[in-house]
């Protein structure tokens, strides 16, 4: 009788129970799915700002061009790098961490829902803080790596570097808070039966990414604090005139910076490892090897930082060590690539849009990986360092790698997130434009780089043989820009269509496909029990066919965390402190105190508020 009462409740609620809507519900949300959507939409907007790189390409389209002034060029390439890394790729990964990790492990939310909201608001305010520099005509102009002593007061007297170092500090707070949250979520919130070695590969790679975040971000935090002391309080940590050491900055930056590379690419590995098996109709080949190679890449990632510094003259022993560890990373990466190929090989391949992007990822990432092995050799790197060859390399791994995989994930999980299928035909147009545009833009950079064209310089003289290839690169960049226009058209077009995506449009293997699209607020009406690595495929196999569409049910009796605005208040406090640090000495301390007070009030009320 209890079941029939429950059914009645469900029917009743399915008719009347609605999720809260309106601006306030978004400002106070602690739902990981909404926070994921906030991360994704914010990151996509920042990504569109990051396409400022098209201006750089116009400038470089012809020799001795005067389209951009050198100062503007410096600001744009700095902000392009900073934006794409911290405000686009990382938060786009965070979108999938937020939305997908709890669904993949069978949880109703993350371990700390309010901390999750705090992370998002701090990230948003940090991004706005960084970009507000444009309004002051003082965007950061020292490069995303902020090398000393370009950043010293003497050489950068303006606010440009201040915006950069404080903006990154804010973003670091967001990343660390989120990393603690997801680390605990993945360890502690798994559904019964979901042992570590049964977790979906995206969750695994995300888990390793959180470890990297936890261990790499404190280092940049300290480096930025020391830089702040140098600029504001007259210390000389990185200033040679006072006995300081500019190379110390490079060491600290790259001890963070190289793990950061894997923070950007490991989630991409995870996404591709989800997409390839589903569209090959085969389980992931070499699951355990995939897990351990991911962990090994992360471990080695902390021992290779000085390969960014071969030209600083560290001596043969350091050069040899860092060269060898760098080459060693190719081994676990190669293991992954062969396992992806092994997954596809002999599979019943479904040529759908996510699969296109995932296969494109493999091809492009191999090119980027191979050029990486090339400059792991110090003598070769001496030739390639600071040329467009390096620009080509890291765009093949970050665009050809991360962005291709994130786009694959976007098409793959779009129906789950929004309940609508994206258009297949437009998706394929998007793919081909992106693949062609990407290669036309970045492949010639290998050649002009090896021919000696330096990076970070606003123009080049005629007659060095750079003209044709640079013009070609500019054309490619606009094809690439066009591909994202097609993506936008696809989103707008399908948004107008019906919200009728099935729960399991791709014949998925993981738990997120067992619940309605989009999921209800509580994700799982009943906590699932897991018996293997591809839980949904196992259920379907036992049933001998596809599952019926899961009904939308009532959430009565399901415990959900209360909405809260204190995370937003605390985040405003953090931003307030940083604005105070930036402000004139007369008002600055008051700003810092006001921000600190708001932060204090936010944290205290948060701590004593009933969590629900």
């Amino acid at each position, binding site marked *: 009788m209890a079941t029939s009462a429950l059914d009645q409740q469900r029917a009743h609620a399915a008719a009347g129970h609605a999720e809260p809507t309106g601006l306030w519900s978004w400002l106070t949300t602690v739902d990981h799915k909404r926070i994921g959507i906030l991360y994704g939409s914010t990151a996509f907007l920042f990504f569109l700002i990051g396409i400022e790189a098209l201006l750089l390409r116009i400038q470089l389209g012809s020799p001795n061009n005067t389209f951009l002034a050198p100062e503007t060029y410096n600001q744009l390439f700095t902000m392009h790098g900073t934006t794409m890394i911290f405000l686009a790729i990382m938060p786009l990964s965070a979108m999938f961490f937020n939305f997908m990790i709890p669904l993949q492990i069978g949880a109703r939310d993350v*371990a*700390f829902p309010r901390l999750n909201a705090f992370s998002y608001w701090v990230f948003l305010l940090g991004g706005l803080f960084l970009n507000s520099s444009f309004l002051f005509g003082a965007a950061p102009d020292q490069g995303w790596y902020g090398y000393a002593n370009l950043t010293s007061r003497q050489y950068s007297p303006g606010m440009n570097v201040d915006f950069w170092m404080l903006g990154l500090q804010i973003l670091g707070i967001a990343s*660390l808070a989120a*990393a*603690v*949250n997801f*680390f*605990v979520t993945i*360890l*502690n*919130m*798994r559904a019964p039966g*979901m042992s570590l070695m049964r977790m979906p590969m995206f969750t695994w790679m995300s888990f390793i990414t959180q470890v990297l975040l*936890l*261990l*790499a*971000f*404190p*280092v940049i*935090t*300290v*480096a930025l*604090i*020391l830089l702040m*002391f140098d600029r504001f*309080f*007259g*210390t*000389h*940590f990185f200033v040679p005139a*006072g*006995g*300081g*050491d500019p190379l*110390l900055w490079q060491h*600290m930056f790259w001890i963070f910076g190289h793990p950061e590379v894997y923070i950007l690419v490991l989630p991409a590995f995870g996404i591709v490892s989800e997409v390839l098996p589903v569209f090959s109709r085969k389980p992931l080949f070499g699951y355990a090897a995939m897990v351990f190679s991911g962990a090994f890449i992360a471990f080695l990632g902390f021992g290779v930082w000085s390969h960014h510094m071969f030209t600083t003259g560290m001596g043969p022993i350091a050069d040899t060590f860092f060269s060898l560890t760098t080459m060693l990373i190719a081994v676990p990466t190669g293991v992954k690539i062969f396992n992806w190929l092994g997954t596809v090989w002999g599979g019943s391949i479904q040529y759908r849009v996510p699969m296109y992007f995932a296969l494109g990822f493999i091809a492009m990432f191999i090119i980027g990986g191979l050029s990486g092995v090339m400059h792991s050799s110090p003598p070769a790197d001496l030739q390639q360092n600071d040329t467009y060859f390096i620009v080509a390399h890291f765009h093949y791994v970050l665009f050809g790698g991360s962005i291709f995989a994130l786009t694959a994930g976007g098409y793959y999980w779009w129906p789950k997130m929004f309940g609508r299928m994206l258009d297949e035909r437009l998706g394929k147009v998007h793919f081909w434009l992106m693949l062609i545009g990407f290669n036309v833009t970045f492949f010639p950079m290998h050649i002009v780089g090896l021919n000696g064209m330096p990076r970070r310089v606003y123009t080049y003289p005629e007659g060095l043989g750079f003209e044709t290839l640079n013009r070609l690169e500019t054309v490619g960049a606009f094809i690439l820009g066009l591909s994202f226009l097609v993506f936008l058209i696809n989103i707008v077009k399908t948004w107008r269509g019906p919200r009728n995506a099935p729960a399991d449009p791709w014949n998925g293997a993981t738990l997120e496909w067992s619940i309605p699209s989009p999921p209800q607020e509580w994700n799982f009406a009943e906590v699932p029990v897991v018996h293997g690595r591809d839980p949904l495929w196992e259920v379907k196999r036992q049933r001998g066919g596809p599952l019926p569409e899961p009904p939308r049910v009532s959430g009565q009796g399901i*415990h959900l965390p209360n909405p809260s605005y204190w995370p937003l208040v605390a985040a405003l406090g953090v931003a307030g402190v940083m604005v105070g640090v930036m402000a004139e000495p007369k008002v600055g301390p008051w700003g810092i105190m006001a921000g600190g007070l708001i932060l204090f009030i936010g944290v*205290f009320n948060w*701590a004593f508020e*009933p*969590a*629900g």
Partner: protein
Amino acid sequence: MSDHAHAIEHHETSTGLDSRKLAIWTFIGSECLFFATLISNYLVHKETWLTGPGPFPHQEWVSPAGQHFEPIIEIPLVTLGTALLLFSSLFVVLALANAQRGNRKGLLLWLGMTIMCGLFFVGMQVYEFTHFVHKGLTLKTNLYGASFFTLTGFHGTHVTLGVIWLITLWIEAFRGKIPPAKSLNLEIAALYWHFVDVVWIVIFPVVYLIT
């Protein structure tokens, strides 16, 4: 969240560890790298600051103008602060044991002792900093001043935040809001407090003892 619901949640996690406890351990792991970087920064500059102007921690210095500077650090006072900080780790364990047994008086006593030790340590540091400034050592003076104030200052900030946290818990305990079922609230703060102590065990010899 009611105590009952909380107790259930405790058993529901995949690892069996309470999520908040796991979170503070995770945070502490991350903080290790924070202090490791600050300590490395101190050690890196240790070689070079002797070329610059003084005062220095363990060496005398005569300025070009002929002014004489004694070695600046004063070990006895800091040793006392160190000892009290280490004892406070014991006190917070006793406070936790009393909280778990539901002995409110004992909890208030030992938690109060912990807070007093923390306050003394912070006071000691404030005195030491002012003293150094009077003796002519500021952030700007030399790399020693810069590295010393940054490293010990950030540790002191951690102690201060810990003291605020513990005072909040003391007030809660005074109002009878930390029954045995909620002793985890104190345990988490205690883990943080131990960490701050352990970091000082590394900083103390590096900054004060090793010449």
